[in-house]
């Protein structure tokens, strides 16, 4: 069977901004989209190396994000330092099951699942895997869609800090975990945009 007709194999470049397909210039020269002027490349440059770099940095910061407190509450009844997990457990024990589950998923499960999924995607491309291509492409799409929701807890902390200030009955401050957690979200987003899903399909053209 013939290799699937891709833009790259046909000597064409697709613009990632305006989608115009144009003829690739001779090797070595920089290509720019004739319509919108965006830089053209057959695949995102250094896609795997960049994905891994962002991903590993995110994995490292995931530890302080979960171990360090994201919020310090001090009130007349004493003070309390909450990590993401202890916040979830507090919500659970006080009967707010829906809220506890929501924050557990958005703050703990989503970043973890996103990092595992990106590692699987980058790893399988590196091993030239030809299996489950469609499923892997879908996984990539899901990552991009769901990843942003892990910002939830950052916004919760923002509102709580703003509303509960020193002068009132208690005070809430953002802890160092919040910065680490924000960094995890940002880094995983960079990792996801660095990954080029077209690499999944590049390994060969004849099978499947």
């Amino acid at each position: 069977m013939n290799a699937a007709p891709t833009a790259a194999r046909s000597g064409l470049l697709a613009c990632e901004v305006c989608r115009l397909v144009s003829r690739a210039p001779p090797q070595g020269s920089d290509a720019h989209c004739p319509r919108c002027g965006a830089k053209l490349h057959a695949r995102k440059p250094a896609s795997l190396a960049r994905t891994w770099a962002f991903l590993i940095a995110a994995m490292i910061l995931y530890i302080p994000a979960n171990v360090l407190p994201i919020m310090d509450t001090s009130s007349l009844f004493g003070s309390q330092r909450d990590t993401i997990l202890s916040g979830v457990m507090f919500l659970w024990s006080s009967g707010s099951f829906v809220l506890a589950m929501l924050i557990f998923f958005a703050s703990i499960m989503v970043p973890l699942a996103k990092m595992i999924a990106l590692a699987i995607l980058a790893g399988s491309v590196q091993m030239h895997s030809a299996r489950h291509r469609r499923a892997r492409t879908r996984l990539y799409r899901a990552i991009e869609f769901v990843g942003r929701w892990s910002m939830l807890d950052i916004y919760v902390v923002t509102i709580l800090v703003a509303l509960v200030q020193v002068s009132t009955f208690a005070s809430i401050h953002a802890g160092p975990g919040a910065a680490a957690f924000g960094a995890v979200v940002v880094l995983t987003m960079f990792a996801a945009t660095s990954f080029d899903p077209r690499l999944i399909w590049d390994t060969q053209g004849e099978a499947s």
Partner: protein
Amino acid sequence: MPSPTFVACLECDLLHRHTPLPHGGEARCTRCGARLYRCAPPDANERALAFALTACVLFVIANVYPIVGLEVQGMHNSATLIGAVESLWDDGARMVAALVFVTTILVPAVELIGLTWVLVALRQGARGRGAVPILHFIESVKPWGMVEVFLLGVLVSLVKLAHIATVEPGVALFSFGALMAFIAAAASAFDPDAAWTQLDATP
């Protein structure tokens, strides 16, 4: 040079021939299922402009008025979004404050103003000053606008605070809800293919 008769899948690079679609139709990649292009109604960008203008007004309201108010033992406290960012900043959580500022104020503002600018320029049939780089720019910052996640965050904090104090949802909270809906409506009505084609045709 350009071949508008071909369209390449951005997720698997498969080439497809550009075929006309029925109204409201959508072309998907035959290999990976990614969306390739759609046939938007001819007035799509007119509608997108109406949604974008409404969203601009809502954006101003959402940022001027308090999002939530809190009352404990006679003491009242309320916060606007920018006020919330400021208290985070003053509290020393500068990175977090910057992140919140970028994702809830800066990017949505840039996206809305940019989209409105481009749509007005297209409507006037002119290329408009900087329409191409603006369109390019708003496409690249789009993933960083997180109004809908912020809205859920506000709702969660309201429920959390309701245990210890009386919370009053502010005008801005409802504006944010509407803003989220109108940003989504403008984005889904917007027909980038028509915009690029028109920008290409007007030198």
